């Protein structure tokens, strides 16, 4: 018999990890399960049914939910596209622009939307928009979303770019490509997984936002989170659980997708010499 003590292992860490996962997933699972509850009461289990899913598509609130879903999706899509473009340009400048004075300041500016507490951003934006006479509505939500999506798009893009050896662009330029061609034909394809990850991140973050949206949306327009919040204020109804289940499924699918994308595309980084 060989007694080998693995000093890496700590008894008790596995149970804690499992506890951690239980805490993380239990509320979501419970909501998922109860969304299939065929009962008006949210407390009693009344058998399995799709009734609340039917309800959100055809029920009395379905029009409200559809509008909200449309707003959420179009805003998330536009905000993600815009912030990804802005963040890609910024990442190229920051990572491939050499050392310069004010680099730290630029980085602080880019990450500012993450650093400022959301509630402060929300009220500041509200006050600012009303001061400059920017009508609250779809457009104001979109602009605010672009702002706070930028750092989330920036991080994976910049990280990817940092992993790409600088000699690729130099090789392209050496082979008679202009700076723009070097970006378009060499750098961008190599950055693609990072850009895609940044886009998806921005998309989810925009879809996710409640606090800022809630402040600056103005009257008469809802996104899914604000609609849900409004409904929840009157108590949790089963159709809200169905809606939540749909939304969390979308998030999980997107995250899973981006997980596999980022695992897949890894060329372009050269082995350390």
């Amino acid at each position: 018999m060989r007694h080998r003590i693995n000093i890496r292992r700590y008894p008790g860490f596995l149970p804690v990890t499992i506890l951690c996962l239980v805490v993380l997933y239990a509320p979501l699972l419970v909501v998922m399960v109860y969304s299939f509850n065929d009962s008006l009461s949210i407390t009693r289990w009344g058998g399995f049914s799709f009734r609340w899913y039917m309800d959100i598509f055809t029920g009395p609130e379905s029009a409200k939910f559809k509008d909200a879903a449309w707003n959420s999706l179009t805003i998330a899509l536009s905000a993600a596209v815009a912030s990804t473009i802005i963040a890609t340009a910024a990442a190229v400048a920051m990572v491939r622009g050499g050392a310069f004075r004010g680099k730290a300041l630029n980085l602080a500016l880019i990450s500012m939307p993450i650093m400022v507490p959301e509630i402060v951003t929300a009220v500041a934006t509200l006050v600012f928009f009303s001061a400059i006479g920017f009508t609250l509505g779809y457009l104001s939500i979109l602009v605010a979303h672009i702002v706070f999506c930028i750092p989330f798009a920036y991080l994976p893009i910049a990280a990817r770019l940092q992993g790409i050896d600088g000699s690729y662009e130099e090789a392209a330029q050496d082979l008679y490509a202009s700076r723009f061609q070097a970006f378009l034909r060499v750098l961008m394809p190599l950055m693609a997984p990072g850009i895609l990850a940044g886009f998806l991140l921005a998309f989810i973050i925009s879809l996710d936002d409640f606090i800022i949206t809630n402040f600056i949306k103005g009257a008469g327009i809802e996104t899914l989170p604000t609609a849900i919040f409004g409904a929840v204020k009157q108590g949790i109804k089963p159709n809200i659980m169905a809606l939540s289940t749909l939304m969390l499924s979308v998030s999980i699918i997107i995250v899973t997708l981006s997980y596999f994308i980022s695992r897949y595309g890894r060329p372009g980084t050269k082995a350390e010499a």
Partner: protein
Amino acid sequence: MAAELASTRAVSRTFEPVRAPLLIPTWVIIGFFLVAPVLMMLAYSFLTKEFRGGVIWEFSLAAYDQFIFDRGLFGDEPPQIEWTYIVIFVRSIIQAGVATLLCLIIGFPTAYFIATRPRATRSMWLFLVTVPYWVNLLIRTVSMKFLIRDNGPLNEALLGLGVINEPIALINTDFAVQLGLFYSYLPFMVLPIYASVERYDFALSEAAADLYANRWTILRRVILPIVRPGIVAGCILVFVPSLGAFLAPDLLGGAKNFLIGSLIEEQFKGNAGNWPFGAAASMILLSLVLIALFIYARRQARRSAQAL
């Protein structure tokens, strides 16, 4: 060797000439739609309030004064310390602190456990821990509220199992808020700790064991000091958003567990608000956050200076 490294790692500066144009969109968007609003809030915090929301452009320290002193209904009584808002801030700090501690107690073993998995399964574990973070925060908080209600599934289950005789009152307690914050930001604790444990060289544990240290001594004397930057990063990443959190206190804490977030919100919603006061509270919150980040950044800078 060093020269070799320097020359192979030489940073590419291909886009140096177009750096400014590439950064202009960021400057414009974030500068105009975030820096300007925050600066405006700073200005508002020094203005006079107008009833029914809004400000009068007249310099005043009233907002900050109101935060600290009670001068009676008409402002003509001798000033006394006004505890209401200070208590709200202190309570917010305590709540955020407890949530951070909870995250650390659960997050460290989890991060450590994941970092010591075989390489093949590591990213799967990490993925499992991060997925819930991507689910809408509102939905997660609502789910938590649903789970821990007085007659929610948790209490039902415990009653059914005979663990308890009557429902535990979780909802609308401080603990519910802490639980909600913990649940909201746990991945922020796990990820940086994981990153530093993954870099940790386990030959050091072996060396310590060779020198007669037991497991827990190794953890305390070798591993923890070495992975501390990750722990500090995790704590800040959890503490900062917890401090200004709005959803968890609002949905899980009920009316009596009023925190900074709700205090600020109240000043700007509806007509009863006091904009300069809300602006002042925002600036105080922002200062707390920036101080925490600044201390962290300074530590990081000092560490990397030492590493060179």
